[in-house]
């Protein structure tokens, strides 16, 4: 019984992750400039990568037909999901800061640039 619960929960998480991944991809295409695309990319990276990995770990724990190596899969999936949760944000922040400071990305559709008043280069 518990296996079925684990597998169903994992599959729900994986389908949520696929939905986030798809929405992030569409968002990355349709949003006007780099700074708005950051939102789509990070949503696609976290919802589309971390959540399915946790879901896969649950499915791996619940699916007995995979045999004993499924515990390596579950452990590695949990570890990489936690690692990804930290890394995806740090990488996106670093690239956003670099794009702002170097002025590489245009800031056209913008209402208010808070960094400019605070002396941002």
């Amino acid at each position, binding site marked *: 019984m518990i296996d079925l619960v684990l597998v169903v929960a994992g599959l729900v998480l994986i389908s949520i992750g696929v939905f986030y991944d798809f929405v992030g991809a569409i968002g990355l295409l349709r949003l006007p400039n780099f700074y708005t695309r950051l939102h789509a990319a990070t949503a696609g990276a976290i919802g589309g990568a971390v959540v399915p990995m946790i879901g896969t770990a649950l499915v791996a724990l619940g699916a007995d037909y995979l045999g004993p190596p499924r515990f390596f*899969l579950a452990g590695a999936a949990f570890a990489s999901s936690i690692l990804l949760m930290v890394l995806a944000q740090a990488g996106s922040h670093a*690239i956003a800061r670099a794009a702002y400071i170097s002025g590489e*990305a245009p800031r056209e559709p913008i209402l208010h640039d808070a960094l400019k008043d605070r002396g941002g280069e």
Partner: protein
Amino acid sequence: MVIEALVTSVLTVLIPIYVVSFLLYVVRVVKGPTIPDRVLAIDSLGYDLAAFMVVLSILLKSPLMVVSGLALALWVYAFDIYIAKYLEAKEMGE
């Protein structure tokens, strides 16, 4: 036996949607007007490819691809940091 049929049927439905979103990311990589746009698209493409490897390793019943998924996630993070460092200070930290 029920669980195996459930898992394989659901995953065979989800995998094509993953592949479609990868193609959309590749469109942004090709179309991206500026360098940070391309980096952002490669960034989320790499992370979702790592997640795709992990999800696929259930369908293939072997935990080998999870390690490469983790390595890909680390590489994409390093890629971000290198390009951010280059854009900001024009040096790669040698």
